[in-house]
């Protein structure tokens, strides 16, 4: 005897909150946008009471109890729970972002009620690095959250983009410096701000803030140091005037696309039971090209010279698949933090001098 207790689309947040400027937020925006457009009222997000595999599984249980037919699980942390859930609830559809279901021992299997979505973060990072150097920046920074595959891919792509632009510009070896740092969390903290300020104090002109809410701290530091930031995941130009561009990945768009296939086009099979990559070829990643709410505005207005035309050009080469980017590196450190040498040799950097902090 209860009211309003069922919902058909559920999103389960991972450790972060729904406004984390990252996975949870991006995918939730996709869910909201889709539901609004299709007049679906019963959708909701659930915060698991425990950020462990069992906690996530319990949240899935809760969602199913409440009637969920489609469950969106943003992030690799759901890989193991979804593996169990796909068998436990065969009639429920799961959209797993940035991961593929597997057992605790890494035996992968994606059942037909699961759509696994991955993104080519390295391409997005590449575009950001490329644009910054083309725009004249020579002292760059990278502040990743933690060295997880997505953040690593962003960072490696970024360095490769920087190198590519420097080569195109014909700069000398070592002409570009990049300070490369993982903060160790995804939060807005005074310590992250202090780290960013120190980087700016050393002369860094722009920092690629690649770690959800870490961005808030970097923007705050940039504001005080009168310097620039590159955002991540979603278009962050609206968060601060210091953000020149953002290396986005189409979290919301991909969620919408999959929901579309379930509810409207009856084409779930395109995603079911496998991993689908969103990259430049299907407009899954990139820099923002429009300003929301103002069709005519120039999304590249915060660059000095880099513009839409230059962007389209490099984007086309990426989309064509002619550039082969590295997404992973062999890293000795248990934390996945590559040394400057590993980065330089692994990514074949010449023009770029990397300092790891």
């Amino acid at each position, binding site marked *: 005897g*209860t*009211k*309003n*207790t069922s919902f058909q689309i559920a999103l389960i947040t991972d*450790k972060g909150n729904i406004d984390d400027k990252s996975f949870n937020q991006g995918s939730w925006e996709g869910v909201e946008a889709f539901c609004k457009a299709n007049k679906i009222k019963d959708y*909701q997000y*659930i*915060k698991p*009471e*425990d*950020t*462990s*595999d*069992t906690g996530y*599984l*319990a*949240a899935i*249980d*809760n*969602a199913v*109890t*409440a009637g969920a037919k489609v469950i969106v699980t943003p992030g*690799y*942390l759901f890989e*193991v*729970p979804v593996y*169990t859930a796909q068998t436990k609830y065969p009639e429920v559809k799961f959209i797993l972002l940035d991961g593929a279901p597997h*057992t*605790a*021992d890494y035996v992968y299997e994606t059942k037909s009620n699961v759509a696994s979505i991955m993104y080519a973060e390295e391409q997005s990072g590449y575009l950001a690095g490329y644009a910054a150097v083309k725009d004249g920046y020579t002292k760059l920074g990278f502040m990743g959250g*933690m*060295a*997880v*595959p997505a953040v690593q891919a962003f960072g490696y792509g970024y360095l490769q983009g920087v190198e590519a632009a420097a080569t195109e510009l014909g700069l000398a070896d070592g002409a570009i410096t990049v300070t490369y740092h993982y903060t*160790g*969390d*995804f*939060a807005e*903290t005074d*310590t992250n701000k202090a780290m960013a300020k120190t980087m700016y104090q050393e002369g860094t002109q722009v920092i690629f803030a690649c770690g959800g809410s870490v961005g808030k701290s970097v923007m705050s530091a940039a504001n005080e140091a009168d310097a620039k930031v590159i955002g991540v995941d979603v278009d962050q130009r609206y968060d601060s005037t210091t953000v020149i561009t953002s290396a986005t990945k189409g979290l919301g768009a991909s969620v919408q696309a999959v929901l579309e296939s379930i509810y409207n086009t009856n084409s779930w099979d395109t995603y079911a039971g496998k991993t689908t990559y969103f990259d430049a070829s299907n407009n899954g990643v990139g820099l923002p090209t429009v300003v929301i709410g103002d069709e005519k505005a120039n999304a590249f207005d915060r660059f000095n010279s880099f513009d839409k035309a230059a962007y389209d050009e490099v984007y086309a080469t990426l989309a064509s698949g002619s550039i082969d980017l590295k997404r992973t590196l062999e890293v000795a*450190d*248990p*934390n*996945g*933090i590559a040394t400057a040498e590993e980065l330089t040799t692994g990514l074949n950097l010449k023009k770029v001098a990397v300092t790891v902090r």
Partner: protein
Amino acid sequence: MQNNQASPKFKDMITGITKSKAVSTFTAALLAIALGLIFGFIVMIVAKPENSWYGFTTMLFGGLRRLGDVFYYATPILMTGLSVGFAFKMGLFNIGASGQYTMGMFFALYVGFMWKLPPGIHWIACVLAGMVGGMIWGFIPGICKALANVNEVITSIMFNYIGMYLVDMWIQGNAVIYDSGKTRTSYLPVSAQIPSLGVTGSNVNVAIIIAIALAVILYIVLNKTTFGYELRATGYNRYASKYAGMNDKRNTMLTMLIAGGFSGLGGAFAILAPSTIIGSSMTYEPINVIAANGFNGIAVALLGSSNPIGIIFSALFISHIQRGGTVVSSLYGYKPEIIDVVIAIIIYFSAFAMLMNSNVARMIKKRRLAKEASGNPGNDGQQDRKEA
């Protein structure tokens, strides 16, 4: 003269009831809980009036649907609650349960990953290691307090931070323990996990039984042994205990050592809990965050008025209402934080519920006396005045 005879009898009755300490602390706790729940209900009415009644009843009884989880989540806070409550008995405020908890968790993890031991022994070794870790982290503030008179509240706050930083650094520096791809610890070997109690869909495990047993043992130690006698004496009156030749410094250190051990066990129990998913386990993410279960332990101890048996019930109660809160939030669209607010309010009121209780008793008594007095208008004082 009549009231002189009537009032002592009545007074005896009142004091007989209210002076029984166990009863009055219990009713005080109930009063505080009622006030907290009322507040929660009000927030629910404001937020979503149409669901408020279902929400409220679910908050109250929803946990019953998930009894296994109630016990499972009660385990670590029961341990930190014992830790805080035990130190309280000795007059020490162990706000450092968090750091001890984290340290215990690390020691348990370390033994879990780095030592190869036969199943059946491995998890026990991990649990003991956790206890040792917590003990170390409680002992140092104990030493500072005993030997240098440093306020243990400040020391243990500092130690929460230092412990947290150290553990995170140690974990991230160990490739076996840390899985950088997932930014958290790897899955523990099954042999290191505490045996499950086999409730489907819940992680409830043997640890809850150990925890309750420890609470009972603690109760016995406190109330039946010379050691407990000394500790409580020191807690009540440090000077008298010194006068009686009790070793105040040693007892301070010992208390913090034991309290730390309890918190450490809490951390070990939390991280060593079995998983409902085969091959999986609990994990820890080293992101420089102070363990919340340490602070929850303070709430548990306060609500249980530091009595080990009371702490068992208050841990179960808080866990129960939290589970209800999760159900409320996923089913009725309330924010789960509502439960945290309710719990904080309960603790706030429980800080002076005893006094409210006795005020109520006094009010009743006054009314009663006033009634008697009005029944016999000519009382002694007035007669005297007329005479004089």
